[in-house]
């Protein structure tokens, strides 16, 4: 297991977004929390937000309130859940993942949105005009995708120096930016890449099995909430088939891979 800190893209706060905030009547500020998965208070983004706010001196129920909406894996319900939060007049929306980010961005151009989105590039995905002057109502942290995917391929080559054929698990319900970044990195690394598109959790086993016919040397898992969820299944598959594999998520080595 390799764990390294590296470059993140932090979007500066766009102050003009604040104009939408009604002049506060000293009510308790409300954070709308928009989540793609099933209710799980221990889910890292939700837990760290709560702990982080507590660490900053907020007391839940007294100086801050949270309205949490879970899509329970049905990402198509996120736009309605986001609209719900906007109707409740929350002071800020915290969204996890690309689907929740898009839903929040689509629900309001004024309510400030803080996002943790591992799958998008803030500028290319249209969340910000530029890193320096984002404009709009969105801020948050994004990964440097070209940097990350390049590192993944580098690691694959370190583990399997002869690797020429690499398959890439890609959640096709996320933007193609990660895929594009890894394809560019593969060209540089002289590796032949094939994307395995998955859309539904039920497809993973079959798609992986079919991919083995091409005798891949390694598997790269791009990130998405669904791919994170599938970590145990993918771990079991790669162990059984002795396929070196890399993931962004700790859940993957924890599942034995």
């Amino acid at each position, binding site marked *: 297991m390799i764990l390294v800190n590296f470059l993140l893209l932090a979007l500066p*706060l766009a102050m003009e977004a604040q104009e939408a*905030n009604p002049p506060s009547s000293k009510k308790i500020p409300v954070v709308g929390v928009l989540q793609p998965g099933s209710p799980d208070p221990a889910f*890292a983004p939700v837990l760290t937000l709560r702990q982080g706010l507590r660490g900053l001196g907020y007391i839940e129920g007294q100086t801050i309130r949270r309205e949490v909406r879970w899509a329970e894996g049905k990402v198509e319900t996120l736009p309605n859940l986001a609209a719900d939060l906007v109707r409740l007049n929350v002071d800020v929306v915290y969204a996890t993942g690309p689907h929740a980010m898009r839903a929040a961005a689509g629900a309001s151009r004024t309510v400030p949105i803080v996002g943790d989105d591992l799958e998008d590039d803030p500028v290319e995905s249209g969340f910000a005009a530029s890193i320096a002057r984002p404009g709009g109502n969105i801020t948050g942290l994004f*990964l440097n995708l070209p940097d990350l995917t390049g590192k993944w391929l580098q690691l694959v080559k370190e583990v399997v120096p002869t690797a020429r054929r690499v398959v890439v698990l890609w959640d096709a319900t996320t933007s193609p930016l990660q895929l594009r970044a890894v394809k560019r990195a593969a060209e540089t690394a002289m590796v032949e890449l094939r994307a395995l598109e998955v859309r539904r959790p039920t497809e993973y086993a079959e798609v992986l099995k079919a991919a083995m016919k091409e005798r891949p040397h390694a598997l790269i898992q791009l990130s998405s909430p669904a791919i994170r969820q599938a970590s145990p299944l993918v771990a079991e598959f790669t162990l059984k088939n002795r396929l070196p594999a890399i993931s*962004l998520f700790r859940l993957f080595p924890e599942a034995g891979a």
Partner: protein
Amino acid sequence: MMYGPDLPAFFARSASYVDKILKVPSPPSFPSSSPRSSSS
């Protein structure tokens, strides 16, 4: 293998973003640039 940033640390920074947004003073302290606020 896994490789990537320390995600819990990554997520932890969001709380400070939320905090900053909640603490931003109300609009009059910024030069007004919105056509909406000047036209009404």
